[in-house]
C-alpha cells in the first residue's frame, strides 16, 4: 500500500513536470506549490513508514520483460524518503519566492519536479534495472538544471565535468550490480539478498559501489565535479544537489554494501573509514580557501560526506567483528548526520541564494555588512553556520558526538589495521571539526558582518517571505534536532535494526531526555539541559549587568587603535582571513602559489599580490588522466587509416581473443 502511495507521488511529480512544459497557467508558482505539496505527502509517507516499521513491496509489469519493476519501502528507504522530501518540500517553499528571480524559468521548471521524482524513485527501487534507470534519470535531470545558466562558460565546463563523472559513477554501479547478480542474472534485490556473492566478487562489488555511489556523494578524489556543478545551478537547486542528492549517493552505498552484499569484512571498514577521514579533512581545507560563498558551501559538503563515511566505515568494521551494538551506534551516527547535513546545508544554500538574489553577488570579497540590511536572513544563516560547525546545543554537534563515541568503542576491534587507523581517523575528524568552525566564522563574518565592500552590498534588501519561511523552518529543525536528539535516534532504530542487527538503547525513556549511546556510566549528553543552562546563565548575567552596571551607551566612530581607515577595503577579507591556515596547511595539502609583485622604492606603479590554490585532485589525479587519454587517442588515431585487409585482421584477432577469454572464464 505505502509503496503505491510513493509511486503515486513520483507519478504526480512527473505529471507536474509535463504540465510545466505548457506555458501560461502553469507558471513558476504552480510548479513549486504543487511540487511542495507532493513532497509534503512523500514526507508524511516516509515518516509513517519509518514509525510503523512495516515493509511494503510491489512488483509492476513494467521495465524488463523477464524482470518486471520491483519497488519496496523498508526502514532505510523510508528514512531517505524523509530526507529527500523534507528537502524537496522546504526547497519548493523557498523557490516560491526565489524562483521569481529566474530569468529563463523554462530551463528549470520542467526539470525540477522530475528531479524530485527521480530521487524518490531511486530509494524505492528494488531491482537493479529500476535503480540504475532512476539513478541515471536523476543525474541527467540535475545536469539539465546545472546548465540552466548556460551562457556562462564556467557553467558549461561544470556541466560537462558533472556529466562525465555521473556517467563514470553509473558505469561503476552497472558493473557492481552485474557482479552481484551473478551468472544467472538475478537482478531483483531479493534475488541478490538470497544468493550473496562469493568473497572475491563481494570485495569488488564494495569497491565498485564506493566508486559509483561515492562519486555521486563526493568522496575525495571523486569530488571534483561537486564544487563546480553545485554552485552553477540556481540556488534552490544547489540546495537540493548539495543537501539531498549527495544523500542519495550515500543511500546507494548503504543499500549495496550493508543490505545487498551482506557480510562485511574488516578491510571494507578500513577502506571506507580511511577514505572518509581524508575526505573530511581535505573537504574542509578546500572550503576554507574559497571566496565564492556557494562554492565554499559545496566544498564543505565534501567534508560532511567524509564524516558520514567515517560513521559508515566504523559500522562496517564493527559488524565484521560481530559488535552489533557498536555497529548500531556508528550507523545511527552516520544516518543522523545525513539528516542533519540535509537540513543545515539546504538552509545555508538558501541563505546564499537570498544574498545572491538581493545583491547579485556570490563573491564574499564583494559583500559585507548584510546583518544590517538582511537581519532575518542573517539570524537563520548564523544558526546554520553554528549547526554545521558542530557547536552545542545545535544538531551538528550531536551527530559528531555520536561518531566520536563510536570511535571510543573501537579499541576493542581485534584487527591491527583498524587499531592503528581508527585513532588517526579520529584525529582527522577532530581536525576537520575545528577547521569547520574557522570556515564558517569566515563565511558569516565576511558576508554578513563588517562594512559593505561594494554598493551592491550596501543596498541589499531583505529577501521575500517564502524564502524566509523556508529558512526559519530549517533553522527551527536545527535547534529541535539538537535539543531533542533522542527522538531522531529512536526514529532511526528500525534502520539500525535491519542493517546492523541491533539498536542503540531507547532514548526517549532516558531521564531528562538525555541521549545515552551505550550506557549512562559511559557517556551521556543532554542538549536540552545545556540550552536551559545557557539561557539561565545568560539571563542571570544580563540581569546582573543591568542591575549593577551603568546602562549608558554612546555611538561613536570606529576606534581601531586610533587609526580608523574609512575605505571598506581595509577590512579583513576572505582570503586574508584564511591566510594563517593557508600558511599552516598550504605547503602540505595544496599547491599554494603566492605571487608578490612589489614596486621598488621610487616606482609609482601599483603592487600586486596573487594567490592560486589548486585542488590537488586535479593536479595529481585528473590532470595526468586527461593527458593520458589525450596521448592514447593520438596514438590510436592511425587506426582510422588502415586498409581493408588490416581492418579484417584486426576484427578477427579481437574475436579470437574474446573467445579465448570466454573459454578461460568457463
Amino acid at each position, binding site marked *: 500500500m505505502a509503496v503505491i502511495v510513493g509511486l503515486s507521488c513520483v507519478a504526480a511529480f512527473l505529471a507536474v513536470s509535463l504540465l510545466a512544459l505548457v506555458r501560461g497557467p502553469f507558471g513558476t508558482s504552480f510548479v513549486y506549490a504543487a511540487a511542495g505539496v507532493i513532497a509534503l505527502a512523500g514526507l508524511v509517507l516516509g515518516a509513517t513508514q519509518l514509525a510503523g516499521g512495516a515493509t511494503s513491496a510491489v512488483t509492476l509489469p513494467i521495465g524488463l520483460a523477464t524482470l518486471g519493476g520491483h519497488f519496496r519501502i523498508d526502514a532505510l528507504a523510508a528514512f531517505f524518503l524523509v530526507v529527500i522530501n523534507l528537502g524537496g518540500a522546504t526547497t519548493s517553499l523557498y523557490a516560491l519566492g526565489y524562483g521569481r528571480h529566474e530569468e529563463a524559468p523554462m530551463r528549470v521548471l520542467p526539470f525540477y519536479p522530475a528531479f524530485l521524482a527521480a530521487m524518490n524513485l531511486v530509494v524505492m527501487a528494488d531491482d537493479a534495472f529500476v535503480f540504475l534507470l532512476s539513478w541515471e534519470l536523476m543525474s541527467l535531470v540535475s545536469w539539465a538544471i546545472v546548465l540552466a545558466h548556460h551562457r556562462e562558460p564556467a557553467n558549461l565546463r561544470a556541466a560537462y565535468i558533472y556529466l562525465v563523472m555521473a556517467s563514470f559513477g553509473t558505469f561503476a554501479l552497472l558493473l557492481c550490480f552485474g557482479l552481484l547478480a551473478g551468472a544467472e542474472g538475478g537482478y531483483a534485490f531479493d534475488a541478490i539478498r538470497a544468493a550473496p556473492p562469493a568473497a572475491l566478487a563481494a570485495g569488488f562489488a564494495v569497491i565498485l559501489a564506493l566508486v559509483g555511489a561515492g562519486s555521486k556523494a563526493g568522496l575525495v578524489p571523486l569530488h571534483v565535479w561537486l564544487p563546480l556543478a553545485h554552485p552553477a545551478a540556481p540556488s534552490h537547486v544547489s540546495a537540493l544537489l548539495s543537501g539531498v542528492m549527495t544523500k542519495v549517493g550515500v543511500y546507494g552505498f548503504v543499500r549495496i554494501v550493508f543490505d545487498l552484499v551482506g557480510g562485511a569484512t574488516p578491510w571494507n571498514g578500513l577502506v571506507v573509514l580511511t577514505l572518509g577521514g581524508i575526505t573530511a579533512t581535505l573537504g574542509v581545507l578546500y572550503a576554507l580557501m574559497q571566496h565564492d560563498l556557494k562554492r565554499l558551501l559545496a566544498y564543505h559538503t565534501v567534508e560532511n560526506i567524509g564524516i558520514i563515511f567515517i560513521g559508515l566505515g566504523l559500522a562496517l568494521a564493527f559488524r565484521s567483528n560481530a559488535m552489533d551494538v557498536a555497529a548500531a551506534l556508528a550507523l545511527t551516527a552516520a544516518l543522523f548526520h545525513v539528516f542533519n547535513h540535509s537540513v543545515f546545508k539546504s538552509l545555508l544554500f538558501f541563505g546564499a541564494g537570498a544574498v545572491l538574489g538581493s545583491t547579485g553577488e556570490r563573491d564574499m570579497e564583494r559583500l*559585507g*555588512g548584510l*546583518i*544590517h540590511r538582511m537581519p532575518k536572513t542573517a539570524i537563520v544563516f548564523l544558526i546554520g553556520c553554528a549547526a554545521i*560547525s*558542530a*557547536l*552545542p546545543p545545535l544538531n551538528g*554537534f550531536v551527530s559528531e*558526538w555520536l561518531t566520536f563515541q563510536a*570511535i*571510543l568503542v573501537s579499541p576493542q576491534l581485534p584487527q591491527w589495521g583498524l587499531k*592503528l587507523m581508527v585513532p588517526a581517523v579520529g*584525529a582527522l575528524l577532530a581536525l576537520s571539526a*575545528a*577547521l569547520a*568552525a*574557522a570556515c564558517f*566564522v*569566515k563565511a*558569516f*563574518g*565576511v558576508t554578513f*558582518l*563588517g562594512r559593505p565592500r561594494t554598493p551592491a552590498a550596501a543596498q541589499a534588501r531583505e529577501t521575500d517571505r517564502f524564502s524566509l519561511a523556508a529558512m526559519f523552518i530549517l533553522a527551527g529543525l536545527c535547534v529541535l534536532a539538537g535539543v531533542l536528539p533522542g527522538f531522531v535516534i529512536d526514529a532511526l532504530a528500525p534502520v539500525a535494526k535491519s542493517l546492523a542487527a541491533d539498536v542503540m538503547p531507547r532514548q526517549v525513556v532516558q531521564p531528562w531526555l*538525555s541521549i545515552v549511546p551505550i550506557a*549512562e*556510566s*559511559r*557517556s*551521556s549528553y*543532554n542538549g536540552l*539541559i*545545556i540550552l536551559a*543552562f*545557557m539561557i539561565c*546563565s545568560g539571563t542571570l*548575567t*544580563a540581569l546582573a*549587568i543591568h542591575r549593577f*552596571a*551603568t546602562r*549608558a*551607551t*554612546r*555611538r*561613536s*566612530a*570606529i*576606534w*581601531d*587603535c586610533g587609526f580608523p581607515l574609512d575605505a*571598506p577595503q581595509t*577590512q*579583513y577579507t576572505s582570503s*586574508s*582571513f584564511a591566510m*594563517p*591556515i593557508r600558511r*599552516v596547511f598550504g605547503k602540505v595539502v595544496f599547491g599554494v602559489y603566492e605571487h608578490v609583485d612589489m614596486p621598488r622604492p621610487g616606482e609609482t606603479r601599483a603592487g600586486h599580490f596573487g594567490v592560486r590554490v589548486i585542488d590537488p585532485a586535479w593536479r595529481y589525479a585528473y590532470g595526468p588522466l586527461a593527458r593520458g587519454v589525450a596521448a592514447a587517442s593520438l596514438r590510436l588515431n592511425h587506426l582510422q587509416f588502415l586498409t581493408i585487409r588490416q581492418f579484417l585482421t584486426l576484427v578477427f584477432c579481437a574475436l579470437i581473443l574474446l573467445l579465448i577469454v570466454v573459454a578461460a572464464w568457463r
Partner: protein
Amino acid sequence: MALILDLILQGVQMVLVVAIAPLVLGITRKVKARLLARIGPPVIQPYRDIWKLMHKEAVLAHNASWLYRTAPYCIFAVTWVAAALIPTYATNLLFSWSADLIALVALLGTARFALALAGMDVGTSFGGIGSSREMMIASLAEPAMLLIVFTVALVAGTTQLSAVATLFSTASIGLRVSLGLALFALVFVGIAENARIPIDNPATHLELTMVHEAMVLEYSGRHLAMIEAAAALKLVLYFSLIACLFFPFGMATGDKGGGALALGLAAYLAKIGVLAALLPIAETSVAKMRVFRYPIFLGGAFAAAALAVFLLFVSRGF
C-alpha cells in the same frame, strides 16, 4: 530534600567558579610581577577592574550590530556553563551528566565562535586579524584537546568527567605514560587557549603580536567587563580541568557530608592556587613566539596526545 541539597551543591559550584575567577587572575598577575621584580597590583585588582568597567559608558561604533552587543553575554554565559560542568570540589553533582568532556570542548568552541564573530563585526583590520589568528590557533588546539579527551576516555572507559574524576581519585589507575603525555599536551593547549605567553601576551597592546586583545579592541564598558570576566573564567576552567583530571585528590566523591565537602573545597582552592602560581613562572621563563611558529608549539601538543591515543589503541596497559 535530597534534590534541594543537590541543587544547592550544583549552585555552589556555579557561584564558586565565577567568584574566584578574578582572584585567580590577580594571583597570576601578582606572581608574575614579583618574578619581574615589580610589586604588582593587589590580587583583588581584577575585581576592581571589572567593577570599574561596569560603571563606564559603553561606546559602540556606528555600525555595530546586535551581534556585537549580545556576544559578550553569550561568551560569558557559555564559558560559565562549561566551567560549572567540571567537577571542582565534588563529583556526581546534579547535572554533571548533562555534558561530557567532548561536549565541554565543543562548548568552549561555541564561546570562541561568538568571540571571533564579534571581532569581525565592526569591520576593522585589527578585529579581523585577531579573529583569523584565533581561529587558526583553535583549529590546531581543538584537535589536540579532543585527542587528550580520547586518551582520558580510553583509560577511564567513559567520557563523563565526574566518573573519570571518581575513578582517577582511587589509586587503581596508577602512573600511566599516556596520561603523562596527555597532561603535557593539556598544558600546551591551555596556554594557547588562554592567550598566554608564548602564544599570546595578555598584557600587550603591540599590534603585530595581538590575538585575543585584537579581537576585543573595540569593546568598552560593561561589554568589555563581560569579556574580561569570561577570559578569567576560562583560565579557571582550564585549571579546574587539570586539577580534576590529573590531581583529583581530596574531592568529595562518595557521600556529600559536611567534612568531605569542606575538605574537597579546601583541596580545590589549594590546587587552583598552586596552578595559578606555576603559570607565571612558566610564562616568565620563555619568550613570545612569532605567529607562524605556533603550529610547531601546538603540533607538539597534538603529537603528544596522538601518541597517547595510539599507545592506548595498541594496549590498554599504557
